[in-house]
């Protein structure tokens, strides 16, 4: 039973601010995913929760107890490190056993736990090897096994699947989710993989430059982005963002002239997802441009349209083909348009 609270947590390295004024409540048994570009402070946040790094300001509470100043080994957390951090002098078996030994798990229970964890990551045949004799993906799985071998209050996983092939990654993902649900352990998980974030998370935290941009369920993050950063970060390909002007109820940019909600005017950024638009049948196009590129991916075809000097991604049916530089008319779904203040990047919500 462990909720995690970050209250105004700041981490400074000299003059550089790694994490800014972070406020985050993680519920008991929640699966929280941290998402953001490289260097945005994900690992730093995790290390502060683990007790490996002291916050420069603010409080961290685990199970409503303030843990500032509490040593990592006195916080009941298990962590998968971005760099694996396997003990090179020990076999994989001993590596996985280490936390059990340190936490005083009775000897006669250890073996079964170790084998179960190793089997979960499909490393049962490699238990006698030293880490140096494993591949990168095998080492990563060993690190994962070492973290899940016992039942801590909190799991912290820093890109635990980044080095695995697609198939293994998909199966590990299911395993992790299943384990987390079964053991009901509060989990903080870092990934760069959006599919991983979407499928695993109860809630996603999108971070940029040490600041939280938005916290929400995968659906909220995807369909209700708070600002241009989140909109442009989530989705593959991400949301199209086009800067233009709103004058008397019309949003105008090169190739686009569509209705905008009444209360807006001035510099506005329009956003729409590639999957929320389509090829326009006749004269009802919202956006016109020329075909710049065409990428069949199997189940659909991605078109790159050049509207003015701006590239726009559009998802078209799988058998759609068009010659380069031919004219393209795109229909935009008026219910799925997003408007952002160009100056601040913040979402402008329609008030009707």
């Amino acid at each position: 039973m462990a909720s995690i609270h970050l209250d105004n947590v700041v981490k400074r390295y000299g003059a550089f601010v790694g994490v800014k004024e972070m406020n985050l409540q993680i519920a008991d048994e929640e699966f929280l995913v941290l998402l953001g570009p490289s260097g945005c402070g994900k690992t730093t946040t995790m290390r502060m929760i683990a007790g490996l790094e002291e916050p420069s300001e603010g409080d961290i509470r685990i199970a409503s107890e303030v843990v500032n100043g509490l040593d990592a080994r006195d916080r009941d957390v298990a962590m998968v490190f971005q760099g694996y951090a396997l003990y090179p002098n020990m076999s994989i078996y001993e590596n996985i056993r280490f936390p059990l030994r340190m936490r005083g798990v009775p000897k006669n229970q250890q073996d079964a736990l170790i084998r179960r964890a190793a089997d979960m990551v499909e490393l049962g045949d490699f238990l006698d090897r030293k880490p140096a004799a494993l591949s990168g993906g095998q080492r990563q799985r060993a690190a994962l096994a070492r973290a899940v071998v016992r039942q801590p209050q909190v799991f912290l996983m820093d890109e635990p699947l980044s080095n695995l092939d697609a198939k293994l990654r998909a199966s590990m993902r299911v395993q992790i989710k299943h384990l987390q649900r079964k053991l009901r352990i509060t989990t903080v998980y870092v990934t760069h993989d959006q599919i991983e974030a979407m499928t695993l998370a109860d809630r996603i935290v999108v971070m940029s430059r040490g600041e939280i941009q938005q916290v929400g369920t995968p659906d909220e993050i995807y369909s209700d982005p708070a600002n241009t950063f989140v909109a442009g970060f989530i989705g593959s390909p991400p949301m199209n963002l086009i800067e233009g002007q709103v004058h008397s109820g019309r949003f105008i940019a090169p190739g686009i002239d569509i209705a905008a909600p009444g209360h807006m005017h001035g510099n506005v950024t329009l956003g729409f997802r590639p999957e929320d638009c389509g090829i326009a049948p006749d004269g009802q196009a919202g956006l016109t441009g020329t075909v710049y590129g065409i990428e069949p991916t199997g189940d659909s075809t991605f078109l790159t349209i050049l509207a003015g000097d701006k590239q726009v991604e559009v998802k078209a049916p799988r058998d759609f083909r068009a010659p380069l530089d031919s004219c393209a008319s795109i229909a935009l779904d008026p219910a799925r348009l997003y408007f952002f203040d160009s100056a601040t990047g913040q979402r402008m919500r329609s008030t009707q």
Partner: protein
Amino acid sequence: MAGRTTRGESLWLRYMVLGSWALVCLVPMLWFLSIGLRPRTEIITPQPVYWPTFSLDAWHALWSDWPIGAYLRNSVLAVAGSVVIDLILAIPAAYSLTRYEYRGREDIGFYILSTRMMAPAIVAIPIFFLFRNLGLLDSVWALMLVYAAINLSVVTWILRSYMMDIPKELEDAARTDGASDLRILWEIIIPVTLPGIITAAVIAAIFAINEFLFTLLIASTANAYTMSVALANFTGGSDGIIYNAIALVSFLAFLPIFILVVLIQKNLSRGLTMGAVKG
């Protein structure tokens, strides 16, 4: 020479070069051995000797005329003891200098190294009085302490350089797994730095076995005479310079280090490069 490949040739060349170098290094020791095992008249004759005569006479004489057993015992005890003391002190010291952050850490590190820069003669007299007041003159224990003191800085610095190469994440992992500092030191740092520990121990042993000045100061009888000081005894006295004895004792002093280095040679070479290169 049609059957010979370039690869074979270069291998052959490599063995030639390495073999010659090994010979250059080892010939003095073999020469010493041959001096030790030949009659005195044959050693000091200016004429070249083409058919040397070997005998164990000098060897037997050495053991019957001198307490060589005691010298040997003193050397081994003092050297081994000093290395053990060094490791017990230097391992935690080096760990602290690499991992804990406290004010003046770098200064302390440099101070430790600077003790090595001092000319030994400066402290010779104070050390003599120190041990006299302690009642430790002419004892192996005093030698042990002095050798340990001389080498402590070098051992600490070698270990520190090894420990700095251990990724911090490793200790972070151990700490989150629930290990205390002592546990981390014992179960992770020491095993991972083992090549460095061996390297440092061998280097300290070599320095200690060669130590002369302080040994001469402290030792006055076979109670504390070591091999290196015993050598000095063979140059004076009524018998003149006893070349056989000098050669044999030198060889005896060289042999254990030689065997030690051969035994751990794999660790030593890996250790020396591992300290220099990250990863």
